[in-house]
């Protein structure tokens, strides 16, 4: 029998993450997306250390300027430097986008997996999903602000309090599609034989979900993640627009885009930057997600 076992050439041991990285590197889109995303994140978080202007500093004489050496992205109607505002806004937008997306994803996956896995909970959980889909978002947000803003501000400070609130608000109102998609996949997955096999070797429910269900529903979750980050960034701007968001002097990409829409005709370059930043982020995350999904799937990785 030894002859057969040697048919496959022996390869050195490799770790899963090396594998994932290996595959990832080969995905051109993912690599490009990753690089762009890192450039954006680094630019946004480290840029302000280098850039001399403060995002909130008003230089009223320099208002409504086009791009120049002093202000490469121009200035806004109060003479604030657009580049500085883009960087400050990016910090908030990316932070909100990522955390809110993660929260929505977490909630959605949790509900979806539980509903799909435990038949008894399916009905109730899906009705709750219906309920959340049906709830009018604006009053819900108002109630959340009413109930939690002051206690949170007291506990963690006003800015972080608002941040938490916004993230939670977006997360709580956008997990439902993920839950539905994941549930559908889990329902199908549950009928697969390897789940039965896992049960026969004594795998408990928690381990079953952790080891067998979750890794196999990763791909729809990844898609939700990409759509979710765009959704979170845009929703944040809608919240600010309604006065439910960050303090008004706190720039975010969504708000910059929203504010600039007014000046679409006069200063078209002003809408360009936030629009570009949001699109680039979303696109890079999309490709990143594509690549990661391909990389995490050993079936594709083998090819």
């Amino acid at each position, binding site marked *: 029998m030894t002859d057969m076992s040697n048919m496959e050439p022996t390869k050195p041991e490799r770790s899963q993450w090396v594998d994932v990285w290996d595959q990832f590197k080969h995905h051109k889109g993912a690599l490009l997306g990753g690089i762009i995303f890192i450039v954006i994140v680094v630019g946004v978080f480290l840029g302000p250390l280098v850039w001399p202007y403060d995002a909130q500093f008003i230089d009223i004489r320099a208002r409504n300027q086009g791009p120049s050496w002093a202000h490469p992205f121009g200035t806004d109607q109060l003479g604030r430097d657009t580049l500085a505002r883009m960087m400050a806004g990016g910090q908030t937008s990316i932070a909100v986008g990522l955390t809110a997306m993660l929260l929505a994803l977490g909630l959605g996956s949790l509900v979806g997996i539980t509903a799909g896995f435990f038949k008894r909970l399916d009905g109730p959980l899906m009705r709750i999903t*219906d309920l959340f889909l049906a709830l*009018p978002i604006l009053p819900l947000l*108002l109630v959340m602000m009413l109930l939690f803003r002051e206690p949170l501000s007291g506990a963690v400070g006003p800015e972080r309090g608002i941040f938490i609130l916004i993230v939670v608000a977006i997360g709580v109102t956008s997990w439902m599609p993920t839950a539905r998609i994941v549930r559908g996949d889990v329902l199908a997955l549950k009928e697969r034989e390897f789940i039965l096999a896992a049960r026969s070797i004594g795998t408990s429910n928690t381990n079953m979900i952790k080891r067998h269900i979750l890794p196999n529903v990763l791909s729809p979750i990844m898609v939700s993640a990409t759509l979710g980050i765009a959704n979170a960034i845009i929703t944040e701007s809608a919240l600010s627009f309604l006065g439910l968001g960050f303090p008004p002097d706190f720039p975010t990409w969504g708000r910059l885009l929203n504010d600039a*829409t007014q000046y*679409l005709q006069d200063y078209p370059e002003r809408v360009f930057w936030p629009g570009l930043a949001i699109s680039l982020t*979303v696109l890079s995350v999309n490709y990143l997600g594509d690549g990661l999904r391909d990389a995490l799937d050993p079936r594709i990785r083998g090819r």
Partner: protein
Amino acid sequence: MLTFTIRRLILAIPTLLFISLVIFLLLELAPGDPMAQVPLTVPPEVKEKMRLALGLGEPGYIRFWKWLVQFFWIEPQVLIDHYFGTTFSEGKLRVISWQHRAPVMDVVVQRLPQTLWVVGMSYVVGVLIALPIGIYSAYRQYSMFDQAGTFITMIGYSIPPFFTGPLVIVIFSVQLGWFPFIYDTTHVVNDWDSFIYQLRQMIMPVMVLALQTTAQISRYMRASMLDNLNQDYVRTARAKGLSERVVVLVHVLRNSMIPVVTVIALGLPAIFGGAIITEQVFSVNGIGAQLIGAIQANDLPTVQTLTFMFAFLIVFFNLIADVLYGILDPRIRYD
């Protein structure tokens, strides 16, 4: 399947009642006041009297009960009266808006056509564009077309309508002067010219909205097609000598449509819910505008009624989606 449907329908009743209660409590709890839009010049005593006249003096549970009766008992009677000329509802109090003091349902009925025209049409257009894009992108995965499609749809998804709306207005109405951008809801289509006008005034809001739909549905379609293109039965179909068109558009598509159709069905309630921002940008004044206006004015009867109708549609379309799933996929049997 029929019994499944009936069972779900019966189950939907307590669900909906519960949802309506939660919505009511939420609206009760939410800060805000129907008097917020009254000018500051009106003294507080007068505002207080106005509040009382709206019935705000009564305790919450009585108002909820009244709403339940009005919505589930009286409004259906109105509907029957309307169609059969009976007079069941005469003299009974309907769900009345606090803003304009007219029955909420009348306004809904008045606005449904323009909402359906614009939002519904955009959904149809969006889906019609999305499907071919999704199909072709998957068929030629990682081709130029696929890359471009991904790029454009993702940009479309990440740019919100509050931006695309004004953008197309500036380009097509202001600069080029091709289309009117204030939607004329009084416009009556009765001949070719008026039909053309209707098309011209719809084209911009429809396109703006369709962009979002297209982005989402085409992604789903692509993913689903990719799943199915590698299945064995595709090879079987090819081995029969069927043309690529038949293989892809009949065999693969039929299977790929199963999840997509449910996604599409789940998106349908949103049509009736209107499109808040786009409706505002183009002054369409559909249901979305009605809802947002009511929320801003704290017009609780309107908000309650509209959100409940929306909830109803969501529950209903979820049911439809499940049933469709069963119909499209013969392997699934609910009974």
